[in-house]
């Protein structure tokens, strides 16, 4: 009773679509919210553009509070939020809510990390021209840290793809769930690895794009 590709092709295609959907939205939302959070961590940290110990401490603790919670527990805990947003705790959309939140927090650390060692001379130059902190962030800090940021986002992309395999927890589908339920749980290694290969291919494409962008941005 092995998997019948010919017959179940639409099921696979649907899972593929779900993964794209989950990853696109979780990355989109998580990427932006994570950027904001990461910038907040960077700017409020000691010696930052808007040094503010109170804000930094709260954010720092919050991010560390959320990140280590086992995902299925976190997903259950944010259920009420999910219901408020999507009307249900189950289904693809319902999975995206906790996934996007988790992605945001993870991204915030990646962003922070990539900005923290930025050369202060050019930030001083911008300050000396009277540029506001917000302007400095968007016109100096981000452009100057773009290469590592791109690689950081590529990292997060892979993490989100990996996380999307958990969508099955709430009936969210996706390729990861497909590999698990149609392959792994049925001990059908062909299905498992074919699906995993598709996921890997997706990741390779994005990494390739990320690498080329980073290289271009480094002007080598």
């Amino acid at each position, binding site marked *: 009773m092995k998997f019948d590709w010919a017959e179940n092709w639409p099921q696979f295609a649907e899972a593929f679509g779900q993964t794209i959907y989950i990853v696109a939205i979780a990355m989109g939302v998580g990427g932006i919210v994570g950027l904001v959070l990461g910038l907040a961590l960077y700017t409020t940290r000691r010696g930052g553009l808007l040094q503010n110990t109170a804000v930094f401490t709260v954010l720092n603790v919050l991010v560390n509070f959320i990140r280590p919670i086992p995902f299925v527990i976190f997903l259950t805990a944010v259920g009420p939020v999910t219901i408020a947003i999507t009307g249900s705790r189950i289904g693809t959309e319902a999975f995206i809510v906790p996934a996007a939140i988790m992605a945001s927090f993870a991204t915030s650390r990646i962003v922070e990390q990539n900005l923290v060692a930025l050369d202060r001379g*050019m930030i*001083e*130059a911008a300050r*000396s021209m*009277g540029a506001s902190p917000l302007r400095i962030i968007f016109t*100096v800090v981000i452009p*100057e840290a773009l290469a590592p940021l791109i690689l950081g986002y590529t990292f997060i992309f892979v993490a989100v793809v990996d996380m999307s395999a958990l969508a099955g927890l709430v009936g969210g589908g996706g390729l990861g769930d497909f590999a698990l339920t149609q392959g792994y749980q049925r001990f059908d290694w062909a299905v498992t690895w074919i699906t995993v290969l598709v996921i890997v291919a997706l990741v390779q494409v994005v990494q390739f794009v990320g690498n080329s962008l980073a290289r271009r941005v480094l*002007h080598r």
Partner: protein
Amino acid sequence: MSEIIRLEGVHKSFGEGPGAVHAVEDVTLSIDRGEIFGVIGYSGAGKSTLVRLINGLETVTSGRLVVDGAEISAMREKQLREVRPEIGMIFQQFNLFPSKTVAENVAYPLRVAGWDKARREARVAELLSFVGLADKARARPTQLSGGQKQRVGIARALASEPKILLADEATSALDPETTRDILGLLRRVNAELGITIVVITHEMDVVKYLCRRVAVMERGRVVELGEVYDVFSRPRQDVTRRFVGTSLRDRPSPEVLARLAATHPGTLVTVGIQEDTGSSARLMRTLGEHEVDGAIVYGGITEIGERPFGSLTLALTGEDEAIRRALADLGGYTTVQEYPELEELKR
């Protein structure tokens, strides 16, 4: 002339306790609107720190600092932001934005100041062609030579036509020719637009060419301050004397003197040339009166602030007595440096 920058008892320390570095100590000075003010001093004297206080990049540890009526030393970052667009700065380390092109670097302060695209582009093109980098508009700072980077920094600082320009070693990486062009530009913006310029430099020629007044710093303090001509012609501090000396290269070093003594007959003396005390014509006349022959063997006369200044080292030949009398006469109206140690050698 109205005052635009005033420092009153300004201190700046880095760190605390016994390991603290007192980079600027008890500096009180005032800079007039429209003047070009020079700051010189040994490496590490506190020059960069001083100008970085003026636009609030460093906060004053104690003392008062007022720029164009605004009390910088009492301001918070947010208020400083309103003052800063009026103060351009050329950084000693250039501090260019590495990921922006040359043109984007120069355009940056214009964006901050809200210039529209067309004006911005015109201004950038004008500045780049002035600093001779029109062909590098689309290059990145990493692709530039040292002097090219510095010129981008200069163009960027001047872009938004600030009221005050802080130039920290603005020509240190430039060849003499390019330096002359840049100094000419600074003089022009000062004359035409009335921009006040604070120039830190270790090149005395820059001081002589540009500045009206100069402050000499040593270990955080301003040890001498005045009109450039006065400071250079009558240096009171040791540090100033050394700087002026190396700069004019008009006073021979002991090695050079020894060589001159070996190759020239006669008595070596160095005589000061100054507008009000001793012109070279008067000098020659005095020698002629005493029938003493004076061959110029070293030294020079240049202008400081459009007035002649320098010294000449002469090899005097003639009657010993005549020489003695001639020197006495000279000593009456200018400085005369004799070298008895060389006479010893000759004997």
